[in-house]
């Protein structure tokens, strides 16, 4: 037999190269996702929370020179009315917005083309001791007689632990995502509490109790359940479950964490059932037989042998179920009411990370504070699911080693 001609060998090598390239696509994709999420988001930190193009100015005798976003909000909400509270002199705070200039100066004084405006602002800030002015940066000239105070930049800690999420608030955006993080975990926790017992029961039924015929009818049903689009679940939740919860608990609104948890529970079912069932099935037949041969009933065999044997797989199923719930967007967006408050019950509206992104990204200008904050939220979500995936991988790899 002749050896293969050179060009044929070359062809095979090329094909192999193309295949190897395709093989690396997922790694590449994950890498790109990381890069792009952080690239868009990381600018958020060390950026001023004050609305873009604006500054806060105070009288030159005011000792305050730095102030954080939360205090700015409280001052402008008139919750703090004295400089003493924020570490300054004992003097009441006087708020000044650009519009207020008209009550002090006439249009003539300001000038037809606002040419005197910077001067006017400068004079106002200079003459009122307790003033804090929220004005466009462009009107602060070099001869400005007041003092521009530096806001404290947004830090990761503040971002993660802040309790207020008002990303478009003026004069200072409030970028606290704690309510959103807790909301996400809260809804997911509720979902897993509902779906784990149910999913496990179905998995046990399919793996150990039902006969082959029943099992073969169940499989496609579970598959279909997994195939229904999330927006359909959301729609169903919105028109059926939400009103139902509202009337049963007599609530002002039915869009609650509970509604989200119920819908997420249904959506997590296929994941939990499939993985738990697979893992239950790995129990060696001989082990089950040994149990039965000792006079154990089938049920005793299931809960004393089969479940302990496959416990790591069941854990993996639960964790992946949580992962599914944490990342779900549309259904949650449609039924949870989306209030960014720290959840305290299942009968109140909550807001999750994915829902926040989906609802707000469309309205946030590119590269603005809000936009970056949403990308950071996306990164957090990505990291959460990455941890979940790696945990599951770890569990199943350890499992493979443990069982010979």
């Amino acid at each position: 037999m002749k050896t293969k001609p050179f060009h044929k060998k070359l062809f095979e090598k090329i094909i192999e190269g193309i295949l190897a390239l395709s093989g690396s696509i997922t790694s590449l994709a994950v890498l790109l996702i990381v890069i792009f999420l952080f690239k868009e988001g990381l600018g958020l930190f060390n950026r001023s929370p004050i609305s873009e193009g604006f500054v806060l100015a105070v009288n030159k005798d005011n000792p305050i020179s730095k102030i954080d976003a939360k205090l700015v909000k409280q001052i402008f909400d008139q919750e703090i009315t004295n400089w003493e509270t924020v570490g300054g002199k004992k003097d009441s705070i006087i708020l000044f917005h650009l519009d207020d200039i008209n009550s002090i100066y006439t249009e003539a004084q300001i000038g037809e083309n606002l040419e005197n405006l910077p001067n006017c602002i400068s004079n106002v800030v200079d003459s009122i001791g307790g003033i804090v002015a929220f004005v466009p940066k462009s009107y602060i000239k070099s001869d400005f007689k007041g003092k521009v105070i530096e806001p404290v930049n947004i830090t990761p800690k503040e971002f993660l632990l802040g309790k207020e999420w008002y990303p478009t608030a003026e004069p200072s955006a409030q970028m606290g995502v704690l309510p959103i993080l807790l909301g996400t975990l809260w809804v997911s926790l509720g979902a897993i509490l509902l779906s784990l017992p149910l999913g496990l029961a179905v998995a046990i039924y399919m793996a150990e109790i039902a006969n082959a015929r029943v099992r073969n009818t169940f499989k496609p049903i579970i598959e279909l359940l997994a195939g229904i689009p999330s927006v359909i679940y959301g729609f169903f939740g919105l028109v059926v479950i939400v009103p139902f919860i509202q009337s049963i608990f007599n609530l002002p609104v039915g869009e609650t964490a509970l509604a989200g948890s119920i819908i997420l529970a249904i959506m997590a079912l296929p994941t939990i059932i499939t993985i738990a069932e697979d893992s239950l099935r790995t129990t060696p037949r001989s082990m089950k037989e040994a149990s039965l041969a000792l006079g154990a009933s089938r049920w005793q065999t299931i809960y004393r042998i089969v479940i302990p044997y496959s416990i790591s797989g069941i854990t993996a199923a639960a964790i992946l179920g949580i992962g599914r719930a944490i990342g779900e967007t549309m259904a949650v967006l449609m039924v949870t009411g989306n209030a960014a408050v720290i959840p305290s019950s299942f009968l109140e509206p909550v807001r999750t990370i994915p829902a926040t992104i989906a609802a707000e990204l469309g309205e946030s200008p590119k590269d603005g504070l809000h936009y970056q904050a949403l990308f950071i939220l996306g990164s957090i979500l990505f990291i959460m699911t990455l941890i979940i995936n790696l945990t599951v991988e770890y569990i199943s790899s350890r499992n493979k080693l443990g069982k010979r």
Partner: protein
Amino acid sequence: MAKIETIDANLFYGDFHALKNISMKMEENSVTALIGPSGCGKSTYLRLFNRMNDLIDNTKINGHILVDGEDIYRKKINIDELRIKVGMVFQKPNPFPKSIFENVAYGLRVNGEKNKSFIIDKVYESLRQAALWDEVSDKLYKSAFELSGGQQQRLCIARALAISPSIILMDEPASALDPLSTAKIEELIHELKKQYTIVIVTHNMQQASRVSDYTAFFYLGELIEYGQTVEIFTKPKLKHTENYITGRFG
């Protein structure tokens, strides 16, 4: 009365006729070896006596299978109770994912035994009977998976003994073990015979001749020859049996 007796036992897996008109008696406190080539039905036959074949879908059984003179396939029989009476040891050691102690205590626990001191006594006794006590007495609460294969198999025997069966079925109990462990198991069978009726399936002719009092040769679902082990191995009545025993096929 024979301890175990089958009269015209037939078993079908779907359309496949796996056991054909088997009639046989086994005496109390004897060791009966079931031999024959793979797929001859010897394991299937063994699993009739604790109704393990029930677990396989599409199985049909007819004929009479008697244990202590009682038909174990009549409707009202309590299967769990039968399985307490008839212990089983499997081909591969299959300890539960539990401690050594809990493995042996399992049968007692699932059968409702709550008395702690009784359980402890019984576990210790069974481990001694299975000649495992000396090797595990200091690590009773370690996982059973830490034991060697031979030890695991003796643990499985101890596990079977703990619920005080009167019959022990062994399905090629030494086929996955090294020669040394095999010798230990065989020794153990000798000991156990004093108290229990043992039925053992084996591939190994020497093993059958060493441990058993009676031998039954199965071929393609039929019982070809059955008699005292000495006779089967020295002067079999049928040419077919002789061919198998001397290793001309199998």
